[in-house]
């Protein structure tokens, strides 16, 4: 499971007075995108945390190409990027569904840590399914 697509409708809460989605809100979409990718790969993030595996974001970027607007139907295409010894990258593309216009691209880097906040190697079973 290296790629996943999630459809979302832009809500009023996502918008700001410029009439577009507030820039910080794209990061909450990225979270939904990667969480659903993990679920589709059989890795429920909630269960991962129960197993003492946490994936905090250590770096995040987003480039905005065109604006998402209220009521737009969009989809988030999430891909697994580089998997390091104890880190993983996810890449995101956000499209407006109607005309397939690319609205934004982004990336997040995550560390693998345990509940003591110690960095841990990426577990083999996670590497295998991703």
């Amino acid at each position, binding site marked *: 499971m290296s790629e996943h697509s999630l459809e979302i409708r832009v809500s009023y809460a996502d918008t700001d007075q*410029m009439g*577009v989605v507030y*820039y*910080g*809100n794209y*990061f*909450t979409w990225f*979270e939904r995108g990667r969480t659903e990718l993990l679920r589709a790969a059989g890795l429920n993030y909630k269960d991962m945390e129960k197993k003492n595996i*946490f994936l*905090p*974001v*250590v*770096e*995040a*970027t*987003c*480039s*905005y190409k065109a*604006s998402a607007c209220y009521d737009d139907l969009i989809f988030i295409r999430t891909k697994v990027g580089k998997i390091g010894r104890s880190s993983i990258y996810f890449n995101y593309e956000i499209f407006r569904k109607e005309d397939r216009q690319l609205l934004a691209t982004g990336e*997040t880097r995550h560390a693998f840590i345990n509940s003591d906040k110690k960095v841990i190697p990426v577990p083999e079973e996670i590497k295998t399914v991703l």
Partner: protein
Amino acid sequence: MITEHSLELRVSYAETDQMGIVYYSHYFNWFEKARIEYLRAVGLPYKKMEEEGYYLPVVKTNCTYRIGAQFDDLLLVKTKIGDIGKSSISLIYNVIRKEDNKILAIGGTRHALINREGKIIKFPEKISNIFHSCKAD
């Protein structure tokens, strides 16, 4: 002029998540607060800029997280001007925990200057002069 602006913030409960730290997207709200106060401090209140037909949407942003900010932490967001183009400007942010002066996160935003019609425009001299005078050497 002000080459670095400092904004004090207290982390609210609403900003935290179940990992016990601030959710990663909230740092971008802090960056907004910091740059708005910076602009105000240099005589460019953003509300007034919009009224005059100047808009600064974010076209690119990034943040590197070093240490998680926690509920009730008192923070300083230190903002500096990065690159200044003909119709774009970059800002750089350091989020610092006031108690021990530790850098929690470093971020950046790049903004285009657009008009009411959404067209990219050049900075008027008045604005450009202010930005250049605030940029550290």
